[in-house]
Structures are given as C-alpha cells and as structure tokens.
C-alpha cells in the first residue's frame, strides 16, 4: 500500500458512541418496566373471593362429551342455534363468521353410508393448539377444557393452522352486544368452551347438549369422564366409541358413537 495513512476524525465517532448509549438507555428503561409488568401479570391460580356456588377448575375432573350419531337427525341444527344464542355468536355462515359448533353431513365413500354429527373443539388432552401458541393464550385448564385467554391472544392464528378439527375461528370484525358471561372481540381467536361459564357456575350441562335433549334426540351427552359413576363414563364403557383422527394420538375429550 502506498497511500499515506490519514488520522481518522474521532469527533464523529465520539458523538455516535454517546448517542448509541443514550438510545440504548432509553430503549432499555421501558424494558425493565416491562419485566415488572410481566412478573405481575403471571397468572396466580388460587382461591379468590368466590361467591357461593361457583366452582374452580378441578384437576380430578375431565369434562368430555359423547355424541351418538345414530340419534343425530340430519338437517337439525338445534345445537348450533343454542350455542349461538348462549355465546352471543352472529349465527351467519359466511366464510369469515365464527362457528363454534357445526353440523357435518358425511357419506362413507366405500359403502355409501350417510351420517350426521355436530363437530366442535375436541378438547384434546394433548392439544396442538396449546403447543403452538406463542404467548400461552391457548391453554388447557386443569379440568381438561381447552380455552383461549383473550387477554393474551395476539391474533397470530397459529392455533387455527395447528388444529386438526378446524375448531377455532378468528374474529374478523368488531363485535357488539356481547353476552356478559362470554366476552369476545375482534382480532382474537375463539372456539367452543364447553360452556365453561355455565359449568363453573354449577350448571350440569352445556347449551348444545341441553338443546339436543329438549329437541327429543338426546344425541349429545356431557359429563365428567373421570367420574366412574357419571352417565357418560358408564356409556363409554358399555358402547363402542371413537375419537376423531384418533391416529394423531391427541386423546380428545369428545367421543363419537356410530361413525
């Protein structure tokens, strides 16, 4: 090299150094605040000042459903209507509308046998939606109900991608006139809650099961799978039931009879 080495000016570097340190300090300071917010926000499940009759999530319980497709009437949508009314859902079926439960009509290709059944969140014991949620908003409660904590949901829709049953819906527009027990809003993901607000307040069954019984079909049975004496536990011991996509080994809490 034949070029003479010049003394580089250090004044500008000095300024950049101070500026970088200042910016670093300004950016870090709120972060330290955030750590406090995060610590404070960590959920602390425990005894609150609960009103009498309210039950907390009991880890000994596993809520589940038994759906008898032989009793499910093709064309009947009472369970869907009841769910929509109970949870304040719009009830319309555009591709962007949320559907927590839907009736499916299936025909076996090989045999031509036709069935109908309701499909909702299967409340798996190993839910893929819980695994993929980056903030932990999608979670499984102690009693087996899989829910979305809409305070933490950022609306990334990864859980919608992960669910094998298309159980989750994304809220595409503003929501008004919510039911007081079922807060829901734009930008979050939602799905069947097994009427957790009713169950926690001592109600014995879900809206869909109740409506199906009222319509005279009795195709949906809700109950505690862990309680050997409950009706659902007895029924699944007696009759043959399957889980949807059992090959995925997700162990859903919803079982089907007749398909």
């Amino acid at each position, binding site marked *: 090299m034949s070029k003479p080495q010049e003394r580089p000016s250090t004044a500008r570097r000095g300024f950049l150094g101070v500026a970088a340190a200042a910016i670093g300090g300004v950016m870090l300071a709120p972060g330290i605040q955030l750590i406090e917010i995060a610590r404070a926000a960590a959920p602390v499940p425990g005894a609150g000042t609960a009103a009498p009759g309210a039950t907390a999530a009991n880890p000994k319980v596993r809520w589940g459903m038994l759906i008898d497709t032989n009793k499910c009437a093709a064309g009947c949508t009472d369970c869907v209507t009841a769910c929509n009314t109970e949870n304040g859902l719009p009830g319309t*079926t555009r591709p*962007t509308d949320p559907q927590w439960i839907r009736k499916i009509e299936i025909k076996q290709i090989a045999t031509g046998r036709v069935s109908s059944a309701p499909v909702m969140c299967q409340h798996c014991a190993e839910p893929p939606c819980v695994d993929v949620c*980056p903030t*932990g908003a999608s979670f499984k409660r102690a009693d087996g109900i899989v829910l979305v904590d809409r305070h933490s949901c950022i609306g990334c829709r990864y859980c919608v991608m992960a669910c*094998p049953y*298309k159980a989750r819906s994304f809220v595409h527009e503003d929501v008004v006139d919510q039911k007081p027990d079922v807060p829901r809003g734009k930008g979050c*993901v939602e799905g069947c809650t097994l009427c957790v607000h009713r169950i926690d307040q001592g109600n014995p069954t879900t809206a869909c099961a109740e409506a199906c019984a009222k319509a005279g079909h009795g195709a949906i049975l809700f109950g505690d799978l862990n309680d050997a004496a409950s009706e659902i536990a007895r029924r699944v011991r007696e009759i043959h039931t399957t889980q*949807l996509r059992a090959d995925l080994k997700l162990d859903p809490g919803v079982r089907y009879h007749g398909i």
Partner: protein
Amino acid sequence: MRTAADTRNFWLLAGLGGLITAIGLGAAHYMELHGHIVTGMTNQVVWGLPHVFAIFMVVAASGVLNVASIGSVFGQPVYKPRAPLSGLLCLALLAGGLMVLMLDLGRPERIIVAATHYNFKSVFAWNVILYSGMAGIVAVYLWTMFERRFNSHTRAVGVAALVWRFALTTGTGSIFGFLVARQAYQSALLAPLFIVLSFGWGLAVFHIVQAAMYGWNDRLLTPQVQRRMARLLGVFIAASLYLVAVYHLTNLYFARQGAFEAFILLGQAGGALYALLFWGGYVALGAVLPMLLLFHPALAGGRSTLIASGLVVAGAFAWLFVFIIGGQAFPLEIFPGHLVSSTFGDGAVDHYAPSLPELLLGVGGLGAAFLLTTVGVRVLDVMPQDDTTTGPP
C-alpha cells in the same frame, strides 16, 4: 466523490421507498381498524398474502447472509469484500419481513404481550428470540467488519451468525413442519428445505442489489467473480428443486396424500391456480429457466444472471403462495374415507382471493427493506471493493 446528482438520486430513491412503506403502514392501519374482514382471509385460509411476503423476506434475510458467511467463515476471498453489503441486506430484509408479520396480527398492539409472555413449546415463541437475536448478531458482525481493530473477531462472530441463522431458518421451516394436522406440512423435510431455499433466494436478492449498485456507479463486475457467483446461484437453485422434488415424491408414495398431491400438482378439485403457480411459476420460471440462463455457455453472463435472479425471486413468491395458501385451501381430513359437507366449509376447497390491503402491506414491507438498504448504502461503506491485482485481498 459524491456529486449533486448522487444526492438527488438518493433522496428520490429514499422518497420512493418511504412512500411505499407509508402506503403499507396505511394499509395495516386500515386492516387493524376494520378487522380482517377487509382482507381475503377467512376461517379456512387464515394466513394470506402478507405471510407470503413476510416469509420470503425473513428466509431471504437469512440466506443473503450466506455471502458474508462464505467470506468470513469459509475464507473465500471473492466473498469477503461483499460481507458488509450482505449484512446490511440481512438487517433490511429482516426488518421488512417482521414489519409485515407483526402488522398482520389480529391485535398488533399486543406485541408487548408476545415479547413478555413465552410458551417455549411454541416455535413462534422461539422465533421471537431468534429473529431479534439475529438482528443483534448481524449488527455486531457489521461492527467487527467496520471497526478495523475488531477485524480479527469477524470470523468468530461470523461463525456465531452462521449457527444462529441455521437455527432461525430451521425455526421458520418448523413453523410448518410441526403442524401435524395439515397434509401440506407435517414433515421433517421442511426445515432443511427452507435452509436450502434461503441460500438461493438470498443470493438472488444479493445479485439484484449488487447489480443495481454497480450499474448505478458505472462499475463492472469482473467476469471471474460474476461467473463464480452465478454458478453458486445455479447450484442453490438445483438443490432447492431437488428437495422440493423429494418432498412431493414422498407424498405421492403415500395413498393418504394422493388427493392433496393431485390438488397441488395436477390442479384437481379446484387446485388449478396452485398447479399453474407450481409448475409454471416455480419449476419453469423459478428453477429451470434460471438454471439455463446461469449454466448454458451461450447464455451465461452479467445480464443473464440478473434476469435469472429476478426469476428466482418471482419463483419464490409462486412457491410460497402454493405452499402457504394452497396448503390451507385444501380441506382438513377429519373423516378419512368420507365425503364431508357443512356450513363451515368442511370437505370443500376454499377459494382465497387476495385483497388490496394485503398486497399493499406486503409490498410495504419490501419498501421498508428497500428504504433501509438505500439509506444503509448511502451512509455506510458497503460497496464491494474487488482487489483486481493478484496480491492478497
């Protein structure tokens, strides 16, 4: 020596980039205000055009750093002077891609929640750390290159950057690879596929930016350097095509994947668009034609390399559209062996049509990357200086 024309051109380009970015931000605001009802996304196709743009950018960001890695880690002298530009492009593309990804969230104002609440079983949670860490490492990498007394550390930081970006791109591929439910994904092959795709897409972007910089400054890339880089791009395209072929061939072997492969490859059952994009967009325009332009002795050259790079980028978008959106449009198989119908689109192929706000947001991300690159090139000394004498660089 900077001329008045240079300065005017800089401000024009920066203004253009700023305008495109601002329009993208405006589109994001519109989407946030009204909800995703204003987009083409539905409950079946929940990740739309913005994700195609975002994933291209973050994968290309990882791949463009390859140029620096080949120089710093593997000691190839031709690539060493290209390392600073490679680092700058990595940061710019990363910023642009993450901007689109975060603004497409249902609740973008809750990024703080994503940054403070982590479910470490989720690849997304890991990606928050991997992506922001990448920016930090590349910043340090650039610093070791620019600060003369830290040049001795460039190799060590280069190795760290290499390892980090392998983890990052593995994470990006695993976003899809870990999804057991969908026939398009659920494959361990996706992580290495994304890594190889990143090499090709990143190098293509580098070629385009380098050609623009050289053309703008009336410089010429020496034929030897040109040939080496062109051949390298060709090798990456071939490797990508190989892995995509293996992925589809394996799927074709499984009877249960037959309907999905017919949908994507043959366009059956409503998949015509995806078949067209795959064969025409990715295979023909995005792989075969570029390889011809890069390897054929009569066609190879500077202009061919530039055209090939552009085609690779176009093919990347086509492949990502088929992969991300085609993978969602095909219905979930909840009842194998049955025909299904419902009010929720079970058993039916969803017809996704991108909307204008989605396109503007995606292009806005490209604009942000462009703006950052323009400013970076102006402010930093990243122009590759090839030593044309026979001495050591």
